[in-house]
């Protein structure tokens, strides 16, 4: 029981650590910026601002992330810590245009 409590507290403290924020804009079904550079092994907060009237779903199989961002609204997604590599993401509702990638260096 005590071990579980310690694991829980470590998890909560680690989770509560503030993460750097990167702003992403969705406009005309495109992500701005479409390439996001982040450092390896760092947790990042993505603040996605959907400026289109239509909803968009931020999706990435590589990042294991999926979230609906309603039209004219914002959404927050945490990613990382990640190893070095490239992680594509796309807008599921407009996949032909809404594409981007997270580049971890």
């Amino acid at each position, binding site marked *: 029981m005590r071990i579980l409590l310690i694991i829980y507290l470590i998890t909560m403290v680690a*989770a509560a650590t503030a993460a750097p924020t990167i702003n992403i804009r969705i406009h005309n079904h495109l992500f701005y910026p479409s390439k996001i550079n982040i450092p390896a092994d760092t947790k990042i907060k993505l603040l996605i601002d959907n400026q289109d*009237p239509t909803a968009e779903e931020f999706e990435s*199989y590589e990042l294991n992330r999926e979230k*609906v*961002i309603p039209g004219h*609204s914002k*959404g*927050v997604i945490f990613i990382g810590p990640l190893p070095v590599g490239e992680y594509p993401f796309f807008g599921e*509702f407009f996949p032909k245009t809404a594409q981007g990638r997270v580049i971890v260096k």
Partner: protein
Amino acid sequence: MLINSFIIILREVFEAALIVSVLLALCQILQLPRRYFLLSFMLGSILAIVYAINISSISMLFEGVGQEIINASLHFTSFICLQILIFSIASSSSSKMILWAIVGSFSAAFVREGFEIIIYILGFVGIEHLFDSVVAGSFIGAGVGFSIGVFFYYFIVSFNPLNGLRLGLFVLILVSGAMIIQALQLLIQADIIISQVPLWNSSGWVRESSVTGQILYALLGYESTPSPIQVIAYSASLLFSSTLAIKSLNAYKMRIKE
């Protein structure tokens, strides 16, 4: 846009249809009234509309992760209701409990998948050159998803009651595990549970974006890069649900012998 709408709506409807078809089949096998499905449908629809209308404000709750917390809660609600359902089959006197568990899991599935469909389609209202193809694609996608559900229902009830119950419970065990793994994924995304290094990467075998990957996601909660906490919780869920299901199956066998 037509093909994209078709795929999006098919995926959402398929996930809900899978659960609903099994629940309907279990009602048929256990000879329970099916009027509760109408109640579940109405409850699920109302909650999905309320959720969709308020999605912007809900998303910004809890420092921007309100959507993840609500969705994870819906997954946990489904999981709990499915466990109550599996457990209650053991007792012949708990048909009310079974029915309320069905209402809970049906409604939660409906809200979860329904709100995304509503948001998606409503977003195109007023965009004349896209709206028609979105609606057409959505209808075709919903029709195919619904047809798969109907097929699955008749597939389960085509067996004798005992084997039908076995198959239905087997699917519910898998779906319960999927609920847990998806709920944990949402809590990781919301930074409530710490993100861990994945235990393995099976995307070389089955990509999550492939048709097989999507079907496995709906049925098993398939993740190509699961974290240790997801694997542990999934295994615990399978063990727990299987234990309940074996007890219920044994009790059901005793009942039909009497």
